[in-house]
Each structure stands twice: as C-alpha cells, then as structure tokens.
C-alpha cells in the first residue's frame, strides 16, 4: 500500500470511530449532558485526526503528525466509557486519559518530531505514566457508582477490573495524577518557552501557532487544576473549559498551514521588488520575503565548478545544523545555491515560488558575480605570476650557488694545491688534478641542466624539435603526435612546451604510469596541447604550484588549462591557447 492509501484508510477509520462514538453517546443510559455537546466532542476528534494526517503527509519523517492524529483517535476512544455494556465501559475507564499523553507528546516534539533535552523527555515520560500506569491502578479501586455522579444508583455498568471499591485509594491516585500532571505541565511550558527563545525568525513563524495554543492549554490546565483543588469546580465547567482550550490546537495547526499558503502572496511582492532592486540587493529581497535574515546566496560558476559570493570571492556551500541548501535552476542550468533556515522546509511551496520568481534576477546577478570572480582571479593570477617569478629567481640562485659555483670553488682550490705540489710531489699533484677534472665535468653538466631549465635551446628550432628532445629523455615512454605545419608565436610555443614539460615531470613523479601520449594540434584558431597518461589519476590542480603556475601562464595568453584525473583511469592535461599573431 502506498502512503496515500494508508492516509485515506486512516481518515476513514477516524470517521467511523467518530460516528461510533456518537452512537455510544446517544444510546448511553448514564450520560446526563445534552447530546449537542458531543457534536463538538466528535468534531474536535476529527479535527485532530484530519490535521494530524495532513501534517504527516507534509512531513512523513516527523512523528508530530502521527501524534496529532493519535490525539484524535484516543480522544474519540474515550467515548467507550459511555457504553452500556461492562467490557467497553471498563476499557473506556482505562483509556480515557491516553489522549492527554499523546497531546503533550505532540506539543513537545513540534515541529521536527524529536524530543530535545531532559526536561522534554521527563515531561513526556511522566505524562505517559499518569495516563497509563497510574490510570490503570486507579481503575482497580474505582467504583463508578460511588465516584461518578452520573452512575449513582446503578446507572452504569460494572467496572470489570474492580478489585475492591476504595474511595481513599482512588482519590489518592487521582491526586497523584494531578500532582504529576502539574509537574509535567510546568516542564512542558519550560520546554516551549525555551524553544521559542532559541528559535530563529522563520522557525518562530512555523512554531508560533502550535506552541502558543499548546502553551495556552498548559497554562489553562494548571489554572483549572489550581481552582479545582482550592474552590472546587463542577464537572461541566471543567469539561467545557478543557474542551475549549483543547480545541485551539488543531485550529492553530490548520491556521499555520493556511498561513503558509497566504504567504505565497508575498512572492508577488518579491517579483515587484526584484523589478526595482538595485544590483546586489537580491539577497535582502529574498531574506525579507522568506523572513530569514540569515539567508545566504552563492552563485554557481560552471567553468570552475564552484560557488562565489556576490563580490566574486569563493563561497562555501554546505548544510549545517539548522541550515539547508536549496539549489536554484534557471532554464535547466544551475544558477545559485541558497543556504537558509531548515524550518523554511515547512513551507516548501513558498520557497519554491520565491526561488522561481528570483530565477531571472539570480541569473543576472550570477553574471555580475562571474565577472567579479574573473577580475578576482585575474588579480590573484597576476600576484601568483610575480611570486612565481621571484621563486624562480631564488631557485636559480640557489642552484647556481650550491651546484656549479661550489664545484668551481673546489676546482680553484684544487688547482692551487696542485701547483704547490707539482715540483715536490708530482704524483700527488696529478691525483689532485684528476679530482679537479671530474669536478669540472660535473660543473659543466649542472650548468647545462640549469640553462635548459631557463630556456630550452631546441625551442629556438621550433616546438616540435623541442618536444622531440623532451619526450626522448623522459623516463616514462612518451609518444609525440605533432600535427602543426607552421610555427606558432613564441609565447604560445613556450607556454605549450612548459605545459608538456610539467605534465611529463608529473607523470614521472606521481602518476605511476607505463606510457604517456603528447598531442599537439590546431583547432580553428587555437593551439591544443594534450598530455595523457595511463597512471593512477587522482591529480588536483590545486595540489602543487607547478600546474597552477602553468594555468596562470596559459590564461595570461587568453587560453585555458584543464585537468581531468579520475582515480584509477589516468590523467589528461589539456591546454588550449588562442594563436594570436603579434605575440612574441
């Protein structure tokens, strides 16, 4: 059975239960109150069942709706004590307070269905104890004939559970129920007040009606209890007062639902407001419409697959306690993410309409944010290029100092030593000179390596020559497919060369690959360089400065650098650089 069928079946059961309860009242030979009062009684039960089922349909994950419906079922079930037969009458005696337990429980868990905190748990537990265990004990000593005015003179059926009629014990247990009830009532009030004080704006709007009527009921209950204990109230007054106080809850809840619908009218105001909104005021307009001042807006930038805020700075979008993220699409494309108070999910229709109304405006603001993000990235990229230049100069200085220069120093000292030895000890002088020669060879090799790092000589003879030289000396076998006939501008050739060099260095260092392919082609007016390996993948452009520096270099030429590196599949680095004549 699907959920809808269950809901309908439960509704029908509630309807029949109400009719049955009314039939019991009409047929009862021990009910002195007019039957009209019980129309209200039945309607109240139905109201609880209906609003409970509506609530559970809207939030199936929350216990609140089921508890509210439970109040209605238990309420109608208490009509069993109107029965003329002994068995249902006795059952009615046992069950006639269960609805109170469900009711207090429902108020305590509103709206998310959870009992938060020790006071809430103790209050719920004690009210269940009062309405089940203590009630059960009380019935064992409860003689309807002596305790209930309507039953005087044997008008009621027997209490089948009666152990022995004991007025003192029954009254004592009733007093215990009242005392514990007062404690649970105060506890529930404390929970409600605390929840109200802690609640965010939108949550307060959702909580308001139900918490208020729950609180009014609790205060009313405590006042009535006080009056009953001090001056004594007639049964009819108590019943009428409890009924009218109790009746406010389903009405409040249905009112809350209605309020959600009415609020869609404010979406209309949003549309108008967006028409005159100044740039950047969209967040404020949405926050006002949804009554959530803490609402955050982040725009989706497809190219970088990330979010930025209105100023174009990177924004983090994540769900955290009490906050949920709704993705807004416009024309099928993701436009923005809105992080808002979780309680707005109580009004899904309002949120949907507000975001749909904001769609076009969001798409426009996203373009602005995108522009700002590009400017920000440009600024950052310029800073990185300067930093990379400095770092490169430092590296060159260190390499020169620690490498060739040290060797030449040692060579100079060795030559002086050899000269001083040559007359007295020619054999020793020769040994020193052999050492000096190997120092010189090493120094020359280091200088060559360094010079190639600064600018590969083969690049002067064209990109293809340079890439052939590069791939030939790579430790991982690399195949070159070079598909260009004309020379490219120098700046483009240099960028392409360094993309390949860095990518192949990464292949050798990290990829654990057996093979790499380098492809260079021309697509329309763009040079496309692609390096693919069959390694472990999992590379990230933000992991090291090498690829990020290259991306800056490529983007400085209006190109793009893309890295695809699915784990276990291999890595592909693709650079696309527009061939603009007049460069270098």
């Amino acid at each position: 059975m699907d959920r809808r069928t269950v809901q309908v079946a439960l509704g029908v059961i509630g309807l029949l239960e109400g009719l049955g309860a009314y039939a019991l009242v009409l047929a009862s030979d021990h009910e002195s109150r007019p039957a009209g009062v019980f129309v209200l009684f039945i309607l109240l039960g139905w109201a609880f069942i209906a609003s409970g089922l509506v609530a559970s349909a809207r939030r199936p994950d929350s216990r609140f709706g089921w508890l509210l419906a439970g109040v209605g079922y238990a309420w109608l079930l208490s009509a069993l004590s109107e029965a003329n037969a002994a068995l249902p009458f006795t059952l009615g005696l046992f069950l006639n307070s269960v609805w109170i337990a469900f009711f207090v429980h429902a108020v305590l868990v509103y709206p998310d269905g959870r009992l938060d905190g020790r006071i809430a748990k103790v209050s719920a537990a004690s009210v269940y104890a009062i309405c089940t265990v203590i009630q059960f004990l009380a019935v064992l000593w409860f003689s309807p004939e002596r305790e209930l005015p309507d039953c005087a003179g044997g008008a009621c059926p027997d209490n089948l559970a009666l152990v022995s009629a004991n007025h003192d014990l029954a009254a004592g247990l009733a007093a215990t129920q009242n005392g514990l009830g007062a404690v649970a009532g105060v506890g529930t009030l404390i929970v409600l007040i605390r929840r109200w004080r802690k609640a965010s704006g939108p949550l307060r709007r959702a909580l308001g009606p139900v918490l208020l009527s729950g609180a009014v009921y609790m205060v009313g209950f405590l006042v009535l209890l006080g009056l009953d204990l001090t001056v004594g109230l007639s049964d009819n007054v108590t019943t009428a007062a409890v009924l009218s106080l109790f009746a406010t809850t389903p009405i409040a809840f249905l009112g809350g639902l209605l309020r959600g619908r009415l609020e869609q009218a404010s979406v209309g105001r949003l549309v108008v407001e967006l028409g005159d909104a100044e740039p950047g005021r969209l967040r404020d307009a949405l926050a006002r419409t949804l009554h959530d001042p803490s609402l955050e807006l982040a725009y989706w930038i497809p190219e970088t697959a990330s979010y930025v805020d209105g100023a174009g700075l990177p924004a983090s979008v994540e769900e955290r306690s009490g906050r949920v993220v709704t993705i807004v699409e416009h024309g099928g494309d993701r436009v923005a993410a809105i992080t808002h108070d979780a309680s707005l999910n109580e009004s899904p229709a309002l949120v949907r309409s507000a975001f749909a109304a904001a769609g076009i405006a969001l798409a426009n603001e996203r373009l602005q944010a995108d522009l700002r993000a590009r400017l920000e990235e440009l600024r950052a990229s310029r800073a990185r290029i300067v930093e990379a230049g400095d770092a490169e100069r430092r590296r060159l200085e260190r390499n020169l100092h620690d490498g060739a220069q040290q060797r030449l120093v040692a060579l100079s000292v060795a030559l002086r030593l050899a000269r001083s030895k040559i007359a007295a000890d020619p054999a020793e002088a020769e040994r020193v000179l052999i050492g000096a020669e190997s120092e010189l060879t090493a120094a020359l090799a280091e200088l060559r390596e360094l010079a190639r790092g600064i600018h590969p000589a083969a690049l002067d003879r064209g990109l293809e020559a340079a890439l052939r030289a590069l791939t030939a000396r790579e430790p991982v076998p690399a195949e070159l497919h070079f598909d260009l006939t004309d020379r490219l501008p120098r700046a483009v050739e240099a960028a392409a060369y360094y993309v390949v060099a860095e990518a192949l260095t990464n292949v050798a260092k990290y990829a654990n690959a057996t093979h790499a392919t380098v492809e260079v082609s021309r697509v329309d007016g763009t040079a496309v360089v692609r390096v693919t390996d069959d390694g472990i993948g999992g590379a990230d452009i933000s992991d090291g400065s090498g690829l990020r520096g290259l991306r800056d270099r490529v983007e400085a030429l209006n190109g793009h650098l893309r890295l695809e590196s699915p784990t276990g599949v291999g890595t592909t680095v693709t650079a696309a650089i527009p061939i603009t004549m007049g460069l270098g």
Partner: protein
Amino acid sequence: MGIRIVIVDDHASFRGTARALLEAEGFEVVGEAVDGATAIAAIERLRPEAVLLDVQLPDMDGFEVAARLGGNGSSPAVVMTSSRDAVEFGTLVADCGARGFIPKADLSGDALTALIG
C-alpha cells in the same frame, strides 16, 4: 705541529679540497662539521685554535655560529668563508666577532695565517 683547525661547510667537495690544501700548507685539520649545531659541539670537544666557517649552513648561518662561539670564553679564532663576495655581507663579518673573511676561491694557508695572526 701547525695550527689546529676545524673546517665547517655543508659541501663535501669543498671540505675535501680545503683539508688537502691546508694540510699541504702545514695546518693540522682536527675535525670537520656539516652544520652549525655539530660545529659548535665539535669545537667544544676538540678545542681548535682556528675555525674555517662557511656562511651558509643548513640549520643556522655561520654568523650565528660565530656569535655563539664568541660567547663561551676560550673561543677559537674564527675565519668566515663563502663562495659569495665579502661585499654581499656588509658589516656582518665584523659584527659576529670573526677575525675576517676569505672568499673560498682565494683560500690559502697564508691568507688564513694573516687573519689568525
């Protein structure tokens, strides 16, 4: 015997040739160290008369090593050396308490003796 000296430099090739040169010119090279910390420990233990101390060391620079050595009483004569030129260091050589500076390429027993006095 000649002057007892410790050579402090992180480049093995320089330590090797400097040792050969200084020994050929009558010095007694009693120890070598590759960084500041081992240099200070070795000098306390070996008590040399002179130290040939490279400016650039992996853990601390030679000026700091010289300053620390100057603080403990019977300090040896420290001569700084580097493959860089003296002008790059300004007054740092004089300030750290060293006797003087010899560029690595100009190292000789005579140059050292002239500074140690």
